[in-house]
């Protein structure tokens, strides 16, 4: 199935440290990106901080690139890395979009359909009273 050999070159002995550190930082920066984005959207941080989220994502992308090139990845793995990086960029946007939608709709349900909410609350209270 695979024509091209995936692992042709040895990793240079001095590159291991850089690879491990950058691989670790990928998700650390990734976490910063997602965390800052979320915090700004949830109004825990001021909006002017938002650019730092994207700067963090750029750092992630750079770490992925560094890690990938030192590992001598082949074309396929390189594409994998790009897909992973872009998914990371998109996920908080998608998530936030959906969360907002759901929260809005539920506030809407609150008004329109009090019963639904009541029923749930009652159950909640009941369950608590049981103990």
């Amino acid at each position, binding site marked *: 199935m695979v024509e091209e050999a995936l692992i042709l070159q040895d990793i240079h002995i001095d590159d291991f440290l850089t690879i491990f550190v950058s691989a670790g930082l990928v998700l650390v920066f990734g976490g910063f990106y997602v965390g800052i984005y979320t915090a700004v959207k949830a109004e825990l941080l001021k909006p002017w901080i938002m650019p730092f989220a994207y700067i963090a994502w750029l750092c992630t992308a750079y770490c992925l690139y560094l890690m990938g090139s030192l590992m001598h990845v082949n074309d396929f793995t390189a594409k994998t890395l790009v897909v992973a990086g872009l998914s990371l960029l998109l996920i908080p946007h998608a998530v936030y979009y959906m969360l907002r*939608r759901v929260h809005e709709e539920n506030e809407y349900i609150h008004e329109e359909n009090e019963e639904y909410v009541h029923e749930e609350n009652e159950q909640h209270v009941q369950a608590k009273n049981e103990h």
Partner: protein
Amino acid sequence: MAQKSVWSDNRFWQRSASWITGFAAMLLIWLTFDTIPQIMMGNDTDIKEGVTKRVPGPTVINYKITYEMSKRRGHEIPVIGGANAEGTSSFQEKELFFGRDDWSQEEAMEMLALGKLASQAKNCMNCHTLLGNGAYYAPDLTKSWLDPMWGPEGPLQAMTGKSTKEEAMAEFLINPSQYPTHARMMPKLGITAAEAKGLVAFLKHMSTIDTNGFPRNFGKIKGAVHGK
């Protein structure tokens, strides 16, 4: 006031989750059907006909095994019975194993099966790694058959006083704590002579499995340079 959107509909996500899971599971099952036949153990006929299997038949114990760089694949591969022009197994060069190089399919399989069973009954995997999986308290056994330590010039063979690799390994397995090689010793596990023979067959066979180049650079450098 927001509109209902499909993205915030639980039913939509429930269905998506089911489809994605189902799809991933089907793909895994399909790949399993592709992989399992490729890793089934070969037999003596394959070897006689020069067919290379990822997991060759048990009679590889009759042959000389090496681990050599394959230009085409870009990493080391096990070579059974010497290399041919393409650098893969030629199944020509034989080697005595416990004094014989004509173990039949049945005899070889019997030894190998006993060895595999012994490897589980003695819990090897909770100190060693096999194919890289297991515990990290003792050396990896994937290519232990090829380890220079057990070779003619290796200190371990000399220590047991045996003249062949297989006898030395078997002797060590029976009485490991009599041959301390390191402060960290292997304990005596009640391995019998027959079990030891089986285990060595199992190890020799394991070294012929095509592990896609793991471990890399096996024995290439004799002394460590960095990190001390």
